[in-house]
């Protein structure tokens, strides 16, 4: 509303829209998207009309993923609601494993990193470049652990009840390109936009200029979905432009036939690291309170390295945050390499070692877990 009023003022129109004093339920966008997905699937003839109001209501407001997703499709969840579910040992074990890992990511890693990130991003003008870089890196892991932690808990809780929800994250910080990142981050939302926005616009089977438009629209809508704030819009647009640059880069590589270097490990590492850095930079716009703050952070990251480095509330907490990030990365590398499975179903690790691992996670939650912060994605 502020943005619209701002535009009106610039245009010289003497019109001011006022706010509606409404309290919106948490996870409103997730409800909406799930219901919309059903309506569009029925419209396109991909799913049958559901006549049972209780079943439909359960589909839209299925409690494990009620407030933060993953956004389910009627073809998956609605069909499962039609079946009878009895207790299964396998579901209980797999669901519990995933739930514990999700809880650990949320209350041990994300909430701890939030202390530092919130402090720095509250007044970024007070901190120097190195502090802002660390806060941004911490935020990248905070938002990942927060949201993927919630998704894992939702999928795990549903699995205990006998339901299989769709995967929402697949090691996004191991993406080797921006397009790969969006296949790994918030998969249920990305595929939603792909199926209901990108494809109806023509997808990639259109002229090049229209394809550019389609990509731009999808990322713009994605930014807008996260909030009616310029920071989210810029974040979405930034990803769109990165997507374009990447496709142009790939075209150049193909033209000059230098694709062979893609096979080397160093090249792959370089690609993963550079995508991670770029994604981290884009998070600045996602996390900053205003565009002015985001620009100020950018300037300080590149120019202002004068002030002393801020270690946070205590050295112990700061070091622990770094240790936890390393812990996460080591585990994720084992998942990336296929040593342990992403969704805990077919792990190569010895069952006894697995038991020690889950005991460690549970004791980690008990010892280092924090309970003060809510989920970042509750606001969407």
């Amino acid at each position, binding site marked *: 509303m502020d943005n619209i009023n701002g535009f009106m003022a610039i245009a010289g129109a003497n019109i001011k829209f006022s706010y509606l004093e409404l309290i919106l339920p948490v996870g409103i966008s997730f409800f909406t998207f799930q219901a919309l997905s059903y309506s569009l699937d029925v419209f396109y003839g991909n799913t049958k009309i559901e006549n049972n109001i209780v079943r439909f209501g359960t589909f839209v407001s299925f409690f494990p993923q009620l407030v933060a997703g993953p956004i389910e499709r009627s073809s998956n969840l609605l069909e499962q609601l039609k079946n009878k579910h009895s207790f299964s040992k396998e579901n209980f074990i797999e669901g519990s494993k995933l739930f514990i890992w999700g809880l650990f990511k949320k209350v041990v890693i994300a909430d701890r990193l939030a202390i530092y990130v919130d402090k720095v991003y509250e007044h970024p003008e007070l901190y120097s470049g190195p502090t802002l870089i660390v806060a941004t890196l911490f935020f990248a892991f905070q938002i990942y652990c927060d949201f993927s932690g919630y998704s894992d808990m939702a999928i795990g809780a549903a699995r205990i009840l006998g339901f299989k929800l769709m995967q929402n994250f697949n090691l996004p910080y191991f993406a080797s390109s921006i397009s790969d990142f969006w296949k790994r981050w918030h998969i249920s939302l990305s595929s939603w936009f792909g199926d209901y926005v990108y494809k109806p616009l023509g997808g990639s089977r259109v002229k090049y200029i229209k394809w550019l438009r389609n990509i731009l629209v999808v990322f713009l809508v994605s930014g807008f979905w996260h909030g009616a704030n310029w920071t989210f819009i810029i974040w979405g647009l930034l990803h769109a432009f990165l997507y374009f640059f990447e496709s142009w880069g790939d075209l150049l590589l193909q033209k000059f036939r230098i694709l062979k270097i893609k096979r080397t490990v160093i090249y792959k590492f370089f690609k993963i690291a550079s995508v991670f850095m770029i994604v981290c930079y884009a998070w600045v716009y996602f996390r900053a309170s205003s565009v002015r703050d985001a620009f100020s952070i950018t300037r300080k990251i590149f120019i202002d390295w004068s002030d002393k480095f801020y270690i946070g509330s205590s050295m112990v907490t700061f070091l622990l945050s770094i240790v936890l990030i390393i812990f996460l990365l080591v585990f994720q590398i084992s998942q990336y390499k296929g040593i342990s499975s992403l969704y805990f179903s077919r792990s190569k690790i010895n069952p006894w070692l697995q038991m020690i691992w889950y005991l460690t996670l*549970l*004791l980690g939650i*008990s*010892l280092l877990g924090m309970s003060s912060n809510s989920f970042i994605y509750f606001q969407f």
Partner: protein
Amino acid sequence: MYNKNFILKLIAFTALFFILDFCISKFLLNGLEKYYGLNDDTEIVLVGHSHLMLGVDKRKMERELGVGVSKYTREGVNVTDRKIMTQQVLRKNKKINTLIYGIDAWTFTSEGLSNNSHKLFYPFLNDSVIDSYVSKNSDLSEYLSKKIIKTSRYDELLISSSFRGYLGKWTNLKFGKVDVENLRANIRNGDYRKIENTDYNIEVLRETLDLLAKKNIRVILLYVPTIVLLTKVQEPAYNETIALFDAFSKEFDNVEFLNLQEPWSKEYDLFYDPIHLNPEGQSVITEKLIHYLKISEK
């Protein structure tokens, strides 16, 4: 048979969790008690918050005075918490003859310290008095979770303190010097903690001193210096607080008031921040305290 096996594994996993939970919490508690000197029958005990924690060097006192010193200091504790800590020390330590109680201009101020300070006492839930204090101040689910899962009573700072207890490390690691210009700017903006003496807090300290008087324990109300700029800006309230400490030292025969505010409150190089001393400051104040104890012994 198939399900029986699963249930047995589940029970074994749960049992293993609680056994580990018990062992880890026991290990941490032991380290924590070493760090705070709660199980040592020492002659001198320090009770206070972070000012005293960073202001006095326990090891130096032990070396110079030749007696055992326990330093039971926690960040952010108010006078009620300090009363609980004093009672806890008295239950644990039978040889105590001198208790050094950390005070400052904000001793009787409620604002600024944590409202949920009962959480500081989670590790000591096995102590019935502390258990009752925590249960009165926390909600049922929080209380029960801490009772059942013992490791949930700790956080990284307590874990760190516990390890320091095992390693015998009480060093002040707050290296660096206060940013005086920044402090002056904050004072100009009114951004500083106000001194407000409340009757309730005055009464709590009186009760604590009364308890110590009954046990015939010598009490030293020790004012570890805080930067003069902070107290000068609130001079009437500061003087009123000092007068209260003077009055307590006259009211109780066993109580002495040792005000080390002057002249060190003007020595900005001794401070890590406006209210905490750095290692250099700690060394100066510890020497003065040792000197006072030696003189008063004679």
